[in-house]
């Protein structure tokens, strides 16, 4: 099953729910059993009764045996709220080979939704944005939520350019409950600007994760000769020589990634670089780790 998590294989699957089910099932089946893993009500501790406590929580069986009144405490239900902020700008349309960055982002989002709703029973929602908010599905655990989310992902076609600052206040309005906010984007912006735009989400008690989607050729571009490059968002053209792409560009993109990683972590957020030729389990693993921390 592991091979179904490979992005190139997933690109051939048209249905998002099937993609999500394939990814998550394959991912879960590959996990080891863990004593920390379990979602049913579990006994936690006994505590002596004090006046004012709810009598419904008294362990009457223990009172009958010992004539002492104790309260039986359980681990409470720790449902979380997952909100995915999906960048649907034109730059996400770039690909050097299947899948596109946008498709890869959809796979990740769909897999997270499936994992959250189907396996975790968490509320999940999505905000699709570019330079403004394009689509919103509020987090919910209602039946049919997963289908709505998948439909929102299907509708998310890239256009326009990314702007983190303008849709920021919409994020804050939509995320008024604590939860996990995952921002999926290629982050072609100054790290300071990105962190400054996303950092307010953290103040509301959200756990914020940045999934940085990049194509392999965006990290190691290949130019056999000088070529004219066109910016997908601005349509700006530029003639670039292979020597620059082989040396200076790589240094600059590496520096950008490293700076973004350090700035986000300094701001208390998580950062994950996802290259489109790698499997999706890194993203799922990151989400589960965050959820465990919250519990």
């Amino acid at each position, binding site marked *: 099953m592991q091979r179904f998590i490979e992005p190139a294989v997933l690109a051939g699957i048209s249905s998002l729910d099937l993609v999500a089910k394939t990814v998550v099932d394959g991912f879960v089946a590959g996990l080891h059993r863990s004593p920390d893993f379990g979602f049913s009500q579990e006994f936690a501790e006994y505590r002596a009764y004090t006046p004012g406590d709810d009598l419904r929580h008294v362990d009457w069986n223990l009172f009958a045996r010992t004539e002492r009144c104790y309260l039986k405490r359980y681990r409470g239900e720790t449902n979380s709220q997952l909100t995915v902020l999906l960048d649907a700008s034109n730059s996400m349309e770039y690909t050097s080979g299947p899948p596109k960055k946008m498709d890869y982002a959809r796979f990740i989002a769909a897999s997270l939704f499936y994992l959250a709703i189907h396996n975790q029973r968490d509320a999940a929602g999505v905000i699709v944005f570019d330079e403004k908010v394009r689509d919103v599905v509020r987090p919910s655990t209602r039946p049919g939520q997963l289908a709505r989310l998948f439909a929102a992902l299907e509708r998310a076609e890239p256009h326009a350019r990314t702007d983190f600052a303008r849709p920021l206040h919409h994020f804050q309005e939509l995320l008024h409950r604590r939860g996990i906010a995952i921002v999926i984007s290629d982050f072609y912006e100054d790290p300071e600007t990105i962190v400054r735009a996303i950092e307010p989400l953290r103040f509301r008690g959200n756990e914020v994760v940045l999934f940085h989607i990049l*194509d392999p050729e965006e990290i*190691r571009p290949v130019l056999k000769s000088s070529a004219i*490059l066109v910016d997908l968002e601005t349509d700006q053209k*530029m*003639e670039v020589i292979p020597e620059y792409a082989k040396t200076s560009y790589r240094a600059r993109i590496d520096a*950008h990634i490293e700076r973004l990683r350090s700035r986000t972590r300094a701001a208390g957020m998580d950062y994950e670089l996802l290259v489109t030729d790698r499997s999706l389990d890194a993203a799922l693993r990151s989400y589960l780790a965050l959820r465990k921390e919250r519990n």
Partner: protein
Amino acid sequence: MGFLAPWFLGGLLALGVPVFVHLLRRHVTVPRPVSSLMFFERGVQSSTRHRRLKHLVLFALRTALVLLVVLAFANPFVRRVAANTNGRLMLIVLDNSFSMRAGTHFADAKQRALTQLAAKPKTQRAQIMAMGGQLQILTQPISDSSQLHSALEGIQPGEGHASFGDLGRAVRALAETVRTPIDVHLFSDMQRTAMPSNFADVVLPVNVTLTLHPVGNGAPAPNWTIESIDAPADLADPKDPRRSRVFAVVAGFNTPAATKTVNLVVNGKTVATRRVDVPANGRATVEFAPLDVNYGFNRCEVGIDGNDALPADDASVFAVRRSDPERVLFVHAGNDTRSPVYFGAALKAAAGSSFVLQSVAQEEVTDFDPSRFAFVVLSDSVALPAIFEHAVTQYVAKGGNVFIALGTAAARRAHIPVWDGDVTEAHDYARPGADARTGAAAAVGQVDFAHPALLDEHPGRDNGGWAETRVFYAAAVDPRGTRVAARLNDGAPLVLDKQVGLGHVVLLTTGLENLTNDFPLHPVFVAFVDHIARYLSGTERLGQARLVDSYVQLRPAANSGSEQGSVEVIGPDGRRLLSLTEARAARTLRLDRAGFYQVHLANGRDMVIGVNPDRRESDLQPIAEDVQRLWSGSAETGASQTEAASNPEEKYRPVSLWWCVMLLAFLTALAETAFASRYMGTQREEI
């Protein structure tokens, strides 16, 4: 230039392929989308230009490749002069004789010859000859211009005497060998003295075209020279008024009357000066007497002052050896008292004090050592003591010379000492019943005046004085293996020369007294004794002066070299002229330069030879123009026959260049492959 298959030029349309690939298609550039140009920078323009330049080189190579392949199929050709198809041979003859040293004649002639050679079509064959003392063939008929040029450049002015007769003979021989039309270009001063007396000697075959290139302005420049010198080669007594003197003849060619100063230089010192009035175009004789020279060889020179057209001939050199009188051993029969008297008188009259005659009867000669004498005379001495005969035989074998006169004793004893032969019979012309052709006496019929013992350059009508001589009695010997210098009118040998070992034996088949002949009573006897004494003593070879290109004999021709010593020759420049191998084997030496030659002969004798250029070269008068026209037109018939064939503008042949073009195309393809693989190949990306 043209194409043998021009319709293949339609393939030039294929040039559109590289033009499209490099120039047209290059403008259609598909922009490449990227997510963001945030981290890109515009490329450096110079680098792009550099790459574009490489592509232009590749474009040029590909275009050239297509062009060359098309040209190769079109088969280009060039028109070459087909000079070698009709096989005309250009023969360039440069005169480097002594007279070419006058003014700038030689330099002008060489320059014109080089110009003529440069104008030769590349494919035409040519041959270079130098006409000095000997006609030198410097190259074979070849078409290599550089080799011909270097051969022509290598010709230096010589000191020999040019002969157009030799040139004519050489060209005739060449025409028979080559069997192709020959264009002879003669670059010379056209000296009149180079023309042979018989014009037929210079007439060329019909297939030879002669073009004369005379140098000089046509008018001969005045020139004085020392035409001849009469000086003793061997001098015993400087105070001898008859011999101790030098006569020099000063000659002027095309000169006005002038007074010239003549100097006699001996061993580098001017010992005498004379002034002489030389008439216009005339000669004057100068006498230097006495000639005071040191013992040994003296290098002498007679020179005249003043500048003229040919300064190199203003001096003549000669050598004079001063020595004590040499002794001559005269062995005679005991009863013969006349022969020593006649021979001694003649020797004294001719050679003066150079020889001292010592006459000895054959019975008393036992203790004499022949090697102490200049030569030995055996007069009617057929019964020599065995010891002496053996000594004489050894003496001759080692290089000594003997003169044998056979008198009446030869009839009694047939053996001839030293001669290695016997008397076959005796002719007694005086007895009754003798040969009717001779009557009572035989006369001298044939005389070889070229023989050193009978030398006479201009013998008179009286057979050089021998016609009056009567021989009454003569011995007959087998002439085989000998050189017969004189014969009687019945054909019997009179004077024979035979080489024995390193020496010579001259045999007179009659006596030296006036009984068997009246030879001693005639003046020619004195000349004969003079010549025979000089020949046998070797002083004639010491000779006063020789001409350039004459030969000197270093060792006898008939002997093997293994038993002889080596010779040594030091040339005018002080260098040895012979290698070690040549020193042991060379028999003759060509005197090709003017100056003094010092020669050490194989028989131990030394001599110094003064060598002068031929004085005919001093007369700079050119051949008359009508004679030149006659000579150059002598082959006119043949020239007219070959005129049409020799017209270079009409004879061309196409030379195909397809293989050159194909070779270029191959090289271009290799270069294109190298460029394309280096700059257009897939680059491995380092990740």
